[in-house]
């Protein structure tokens, strides 16, 4: 084991944290934080938010390199200077996994980059990923007190800087592992949720194996989120850091086909299973012409380009056939990823159609801005009614209808209502449907007794426990649609309940040994 004594001690302190639910802030009664930033609060409030360098829009639409270059050391430290070191850090409570934001900012300010990233990783093992794709503007940064007057702190960009600094300087050392508990856990799916469960449980002393259906680990981080938002090398590095904890990853294994959950729990001897398979099945519009050539689901487009590297065709064998004019349907993050990916494949025109107005769009604002900068044409209050094809079965036009907004629906979003007689035609040779995903049913169908909702999601309680003992689930497969950080938060919650469940099993097996079942040196 590589950890030194000091790290060991820290890990020891971490244990009660692992038991506490995320939503309760254990720190609210904690002793007052020491202030370390030298500037007076007034001076701090004078510093404007730092902006990262970004690739110029005209340039970036010709490549798949990352849009944002992140902060350099100077910017990161200058940004840390803006923190008010609030006594009751609301940012930390707003974070779904309660990263101790003020603490890592202080460490960053003091130049202890290794300490700062270690601090983040205590609560979130995937900072290089979350620093890039978390919707901070709705979470920590949205609650930042500085933001009441000025722009909030760029918390995400500082997190990303620390993660990247660690990777580039090669200073990562795996956190110390607790003594082996002699029990093993199977994790299904290697997306953000699965990786988090694996990392957490491995640190607690469990023997963890992740099963991944695709040929590479990373799940949606690999096949879904584009290279220009989250470089695949970053994902690979984060996966390596999970493996550094002793986690095994078996690719090309489809649970529900190659193996079943009951085999994992039975003959394979896993004590518990976590299902984090995501929301794998693309939804379609149910309009005529949807199966024409040139009509793709966003998942197909993104998987081809991201996982299979179609943007490097013919160096990579998988092609993506994009025409002169691409129309993407939808208004969420996936639609934004699909439209910006399409743009980079070089069509003359790239459009996005959304049936509500800009205000109702569920996509991250930052990504909408990026898309606009890149020359994507947005058409709001526009809904497709049919797709028309040519004599070869290739799409040639999409028939649309104008909408107006009516009463709010159960989620509070105003319902789009078609305007009579408003239909019109947009000529196009490529259509990408990005209107959402439903849960993949393979596991539900092959696991008797696993309760599901009428939407096909797996039913779980607050602790991510399913209707069957020993089986836990989280992320999209139980929520229907979630963000990366929600999947991470579920993963943390689930790892605590899996730990509790397995502790009980140990107790039943050999009473009095729940704490130290076996030694493995």
């Amino acid at each position, binding site marked *: 084991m590589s950890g030194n004594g000091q790290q060991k001690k820290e890990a020891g302190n971490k244990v009660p944290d692992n038991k506490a639910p995320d939503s309760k802030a254990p720190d609210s009664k904690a002793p007052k934080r020491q202030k370390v930033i030298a500037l007076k609060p007034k001076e701090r409030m004078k510093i404007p938010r730092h902006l990262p360098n970004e690739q110029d829009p005209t340039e970036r639409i010709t490549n798949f390199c990352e849009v944002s270059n992140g902060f350099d050391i100077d910017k990161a430290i200058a940004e840390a200077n803006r923190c008010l070191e609030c006594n009751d850090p609301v940012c930390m409570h707003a974070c779904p996994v309660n990263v101790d934001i003020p603490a890592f900012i202080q460490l960053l300010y003091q130049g202890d980059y290794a300490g700062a990233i270690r601090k983040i990783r205590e609560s979130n093992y995937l900072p290089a990923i979350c620093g890039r794709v978390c919707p901070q503007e709705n979470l920590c940064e949205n609650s930042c007190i500085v933001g009441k007057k000025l722009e909030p702190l760029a918390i995400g960009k500082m997190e990303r800087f620390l993660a990247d600094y660690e990777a580039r300087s090669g200073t990562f050392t795996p956190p110390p592992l607790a003594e082996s508990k002699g029990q093993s856990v199977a994790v299904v799916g290697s997306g953000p949720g699965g990786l988090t469960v694996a990392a957490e449980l491995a640190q607690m002393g469990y023997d963890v194996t992740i099963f991944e259906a695709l*040929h590479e680990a990373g799940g949606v981080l690999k096949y879904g989120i584009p290279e220009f938002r989250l470089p695949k090398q970053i994902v690979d590095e984060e996966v390596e850091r999970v493996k550094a904890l002793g986690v095994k990853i078996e690719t090309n294994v489809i649970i529900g086909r190659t193996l079943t959950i009951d085999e994992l729990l039975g003959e394979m001897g896993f004590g518990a299973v976590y299902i984090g398979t995501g929301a794998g*099945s693309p939804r379609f519009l149910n309009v005529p012409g949807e199966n*024409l050539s040139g009509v793709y689901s966003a998942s197909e487009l993104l998987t081809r380009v991201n996982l299979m590297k179609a943007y490097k065709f013919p160096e990579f064998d998988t092609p993506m056939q994009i025409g002169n004019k691409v129309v993407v349907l939808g208004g969420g993050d996936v639609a934004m990823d699909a439209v910006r990916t399409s743009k980079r494949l070089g069509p003359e025109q790239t459009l996005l159609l959304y049936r509500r107005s800009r205000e109702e769009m569920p996509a991250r604002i930052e990504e909408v801005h990026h898309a606009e900068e890149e020359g994507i044409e947005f058409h709001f209050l526009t809904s497709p009614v049919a797709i028309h094809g040519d004599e070869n079965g290739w799409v040639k036009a999409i028939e649309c209808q104008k909408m107006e907004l009516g009463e709010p629906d159960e989620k509070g979003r105003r319902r789009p209502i078609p305007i009579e007689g408003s239909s019109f035609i947009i000529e196009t040779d490529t259509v990408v449907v990005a209107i959402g995903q439903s849960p993949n049913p393979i596991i539900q169908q092959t696991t008797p007794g696993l309760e599901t909702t009428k939407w096909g999601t797996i039913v779980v309680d607050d602790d991510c426990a399913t209707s069957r003992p020993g089986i836990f689930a989280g992320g999209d497969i139980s929520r229907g649609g979630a963000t990366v950080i929600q999947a991470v938060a579920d993963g943390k919650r689930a790892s605590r309940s899996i730990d509790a469940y397995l502790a009980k099993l140990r107790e039943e097996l050999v009473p009095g040994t729940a704490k130290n079942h076996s030694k493995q040196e």
Partner: protein
Amino acid sequence: MYRIIQTETLAPTITKLTVEAPLIARKRKAGNFVIVRPTPTGERIPLTIVDSDPDKGTIVIIVQAIGKTTHIITGMKEGEYLMDVVGPLGEPTPVSDFGTVVCIGGGVGTAVIYPIAKALKEAGNRVISIIGARNRELVILEDEMAAVSDELIVTTDDGSHGKKGFVTDALQEIITGQGKPDAVYAIGPLPMMRAVANVTREPEIRTWVSLNPIMMDGTGMCGACRVTVGNEMKFACVDGPEFDAHEVNFDELIARNRTYAGPEQEAFSTWKNRTETTDCKHL
């Protein structure tokens, strides 16, 4: 990585590969397929599992060299490795004792119909098999098919082997000569399966076909494999690959399968030219 235990050339462009894949071999049922990605930069393509040996932990696939990926696979030797093999995928073939069943294999589709004919025979059916190819050289698995069939008819387009004509002619003959079979399974090129469906539609003979749309993940994740069956959208990789032939929209699928024809042609010719110029280095 998945080791190739054995290779055998069945016809000039058709190769049989026995591959080590113990977990898949254990679970595989007739009609299942795998997704194979031969190399680190390769494409994922679906291939039917022709046979499996759970004890030895091996599966058999039969590949016809058509594009770049299939050429790479058929060019692989014993002891080499396929980068990725995942499965078993798809719903197994509905097999029961129907009575008399006609199994039709066209071209390399014979490799796919073979395990089904075998399973149907084992289930107690009287199996009449028809295998068709363009010419004598391309007829594959004749002995194997004969072994699992009560009657075997071979047809070639040019008459160089067996009967001259198409598999549908032979099927028609059976229907008129021996009466309506209880079920028909047809696997081959899409136009052939469409023609079979047209023959059996009127006499209302239950007919299954195995569809081969473009696939990527094989788990219902991308929708590339969607087909219209009975006016409903189905994902062939999870809902199929076998469907009621009379419900399938073949024309749509034929058009969809041409989606990547352009880039595939490009990839193949670039690859071919490259191997031709570098071939000498291997000597």
